[in-house]
């Protein structure tokens, strides 16, 4: 608020990177493209670091964007504790992933295009986080959807890739529809979209609860389910694995998908006033966590397992939000960014080592061939399973504890979260055993370790996954309280330790089962044996995609083609026009017969016409007074 922190640099640097690489990248040498692409996130990261020393919250305004009558939206960036953490994660992890991509995408023709899109993504994501009003946030919100579309469909010659990109964008749009309605409601009821103004207005009105605020919260949450892949709009995320693996790491693990969580945290002052909305958020979060974890149990593609894992972990974050433990949710967001990005990058390294193979059934024994990848991934697997004192241990625990402390619904959801933790450990260790242990099932003996451009980020992320929790344990809530408020119900003392122990036990159980089933024997049939029907259901992702296709897509297309186009447009409207035209030409055809060319008929009509005229001329005189009277009466 005193001097400018030049927050505008944070999104601008990536945008310049996008323009340079996008317009000129095709002709520039790879080294220059990489340099431009890497300098952008690095520069933004440095600006964020510099800005973090200032007094928060700090807002900067760059003028008006839209001004019509009483509507006034301006370009305002706000840096507070919440956006600071997000920015550090986005630019920091983003930078690491950029470095990784230099190695991973080295042989790709579209190298320049990839980095242009990646920078574009950073531009939109930082805008989203820095935005001081909801409309500016929406710019970033849709923008990251665009970047996601471009990057998922990066290898556009592949139909499955471009299909996946299209699906992602459209499903996101359904969520955006909800977001827009939320914006309209905000505008109609409060006349402003600025977060600070809205917070003030709502705070000034302590009795306002439920009603409109519930509607707003739910609409915004619909947007979040789209962007953050929750039930029912999660279906795009698994397909998004068609994109390059670093993209999955950055966008579909660490940053874009967390936008929904960030948005809920940012607008928490609305959610706080609507217990119904919070319950919905929590229930959907927990349900999604469980649902996705069950699907992840049986997937055979390494990236798909991680995708469903992401959906599941996002569910945890929303569970945290739903019990008003926003800072716990953000804490988990941060730790998740570390270990999930690591998991994806390591998976990329595995895939790279396997020469492009992604099916875990064909992997095995990579422990010795790719040791660094193995060790870093192990750190991540331990972290996500809630291994004591690693990052997720603290963050997951914070959420589960907060859930338990939130009434009877909270306890139920806590239990769901606990079960999910067990499942999480199971499928992660299953992945671990299938990939790294046992006999080498691949026939290609050329598996080798990845270059240092890829391994370096893995190592850094591994350190963060292990130690990242210590950054926030106990202090996270306090740090974020100026923005997010404090949670009133807290678990203390022995209950908290019992919770922790239970969570660790669940994780250990999952590891144990995975060990029994996959370390000794390695076949997918293990799981199938007890319940083949259930297994099929899970393998086919509960047939949700097919269901949506049946209920939404097919009817829409059928309706449009057969009813709207044929019946309404062609038959009814076209028919009406044809009818009118037909009447015109029919009457023309009838009248045409008058011009018969027959002289006698002409003569007859002539005579008749003359007689009629004569009548009208003579009638007044012949019938005299009588017709005059008739005439007068008419007027």
């Amino acid at each position, binding site marked *: 608020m005193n001097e400018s922190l030049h927050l505008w640099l944070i999104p601008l640097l990536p945008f310049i990177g996008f323009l340079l690489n996008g317009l000129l990248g095709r002709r520039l040498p790879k080294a220059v493209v990489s340099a431009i692409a890497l300098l952008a996130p690095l520069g933004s990261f440095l600006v964020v670091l510099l800005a973090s020393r200032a007094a928060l919250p700090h807002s900067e305004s760059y003028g008006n964007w839209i001004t019509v009558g009483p509507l006034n939206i301006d370009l305002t960036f706000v840096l507070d504790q919440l956006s600071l953490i997000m920015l550090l994660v986005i630019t920091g992890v983003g930078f690491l992933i950029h470095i990784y991509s230099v190695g991973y995408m080295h042989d790709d023709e579209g190298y320049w295009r990839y980095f242009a899109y990646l920078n574009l993504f950073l531009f939109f994501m930082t805008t989203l986080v820095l935005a001081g009003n909801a409309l500016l946030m929406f710019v970033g919100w849709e923008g990251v959807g665009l970047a996601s579309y471009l990057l998922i469909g990066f290898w556009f010659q592949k139909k499955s890739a471009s299909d996946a990109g299209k699906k992602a964008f459209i499903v996101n749009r359904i969520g955006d529809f909800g977001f827009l309605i939320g914006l309209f409601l905000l505008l109609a009821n409060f006349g402003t979209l600025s977060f600070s103004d809205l917070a003030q207005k709502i705070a000034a009105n302590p009795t306002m609860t439920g009603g409109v605020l519930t509607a707003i919260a739910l609409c915004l949450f619909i947007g979040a389910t789209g962007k953050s892949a929750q039930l029912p709009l999660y279906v795009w995320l698994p397909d998004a694995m068609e994109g390059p693996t670093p993209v999955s790491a950055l966008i579909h693990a660490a940053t874009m998908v967390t936008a929904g969580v960030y948005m809920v945290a940012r607008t928490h002052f609305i959610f706080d006033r609507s217990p119904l909305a919070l319950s919905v958020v929590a229930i959907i979060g927990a349900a999604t966590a469980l649902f996705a974890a069950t699907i992840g149990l049986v997937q055979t593609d390494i990236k798909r397992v991680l995708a469903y894992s992401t959906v599941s972990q996002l569910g945890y974050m929303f569970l945290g939000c739903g019990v008003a433990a926003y800072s716990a949710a953000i804490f988990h967001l941060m730790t998740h960014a570390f270990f999930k990005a690591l998991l994806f990058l390591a998976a990329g390294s595995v895939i790279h080592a396997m020469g492009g193979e992604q099916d875990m059934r064909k992997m095995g024994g990579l422990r010795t061939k790719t040791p660094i990848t193995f060790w870093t991934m192990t750190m991540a697997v331990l972290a996500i399973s809630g291994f004591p004192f690693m990052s997720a241990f603290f963050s997951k625990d914070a959420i589960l504890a907060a859930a338990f402390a939130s009434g009877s619904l909270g306890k139920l959801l806590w239990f769901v979260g606990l079960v999910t933790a067990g499942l999480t450990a199971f499928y992660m260790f299953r992945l671990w055993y299938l990939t790294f242990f046992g006999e080498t099932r691949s026939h290609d003996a050329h598996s080798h370790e990845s270059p240092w451009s890829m391994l370096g980020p893995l190592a850094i992320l591994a350190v963060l996954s292990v130690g990242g929790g210590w950054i926030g344990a106990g202090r996270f809530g306090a740090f974020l309280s100026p923005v997010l408020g404090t949670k009133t119900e807290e678990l203390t003392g022995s209950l908290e330790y019992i919770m922790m122990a239970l969570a660790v036990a669940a994780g250990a159980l999952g590891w144990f089962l995975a060990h029994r089933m996959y370390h000794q024997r390695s076949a997918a049939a293990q799981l199938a044996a007890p319940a083949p029907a259930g297994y099929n259901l899970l393998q086919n992702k509960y047939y949700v995609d097919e269901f949506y296709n049946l209920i939404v897509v097919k009817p829409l297309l059928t309706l449009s083609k057969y009813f709207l186009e044929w019946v309404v447009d062609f038959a009814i409207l076209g028919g009406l026009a044809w009818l009118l035209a037909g009447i015109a030409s029919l009457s023309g055809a009838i009248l045409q017969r008058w*011009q*018969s*060319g*027959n*002289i*006698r008929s002409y*003569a*007859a009509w002539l*005579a008749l016409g003359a007689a009629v005229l004569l009548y009208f001329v003579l009638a007044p005189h012949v019938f005299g007074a009588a017709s005059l009277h008739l005439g007068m009466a008419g007027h």
Partner: protein
Amino acid sequence: MHLSPEVPLVWYLLLSAVLFCLGVVGFLIKRNLITVFMSIELMLNAVNLSFVTFAHQWHDVKGQIFVFFVMVVAAAEAAVGLAIIIAVFRARATLAVDRIDLMKL
């Protein structure tokens, strides 16, 4: 006044009307083009008769002058009309009114 041995005026008018009607009927019914033409002439002359009659009745010479106009027009029309009939006959080799119907849509 003394009874004039003249023909009453009404009879002239009746004659004119009858002639006119004959002309109209002939115009409508006859199948030969020249006969139709003659009927037209008949109509014109019937009108001439009525003009003259009224001119006598009102002692106004304007009616008789108008007869000259009508006669000139009739003559011109006869000339042009007969020329057209000859041209039509040369083209279609028929004078039956019903067969000359090319001027149709």
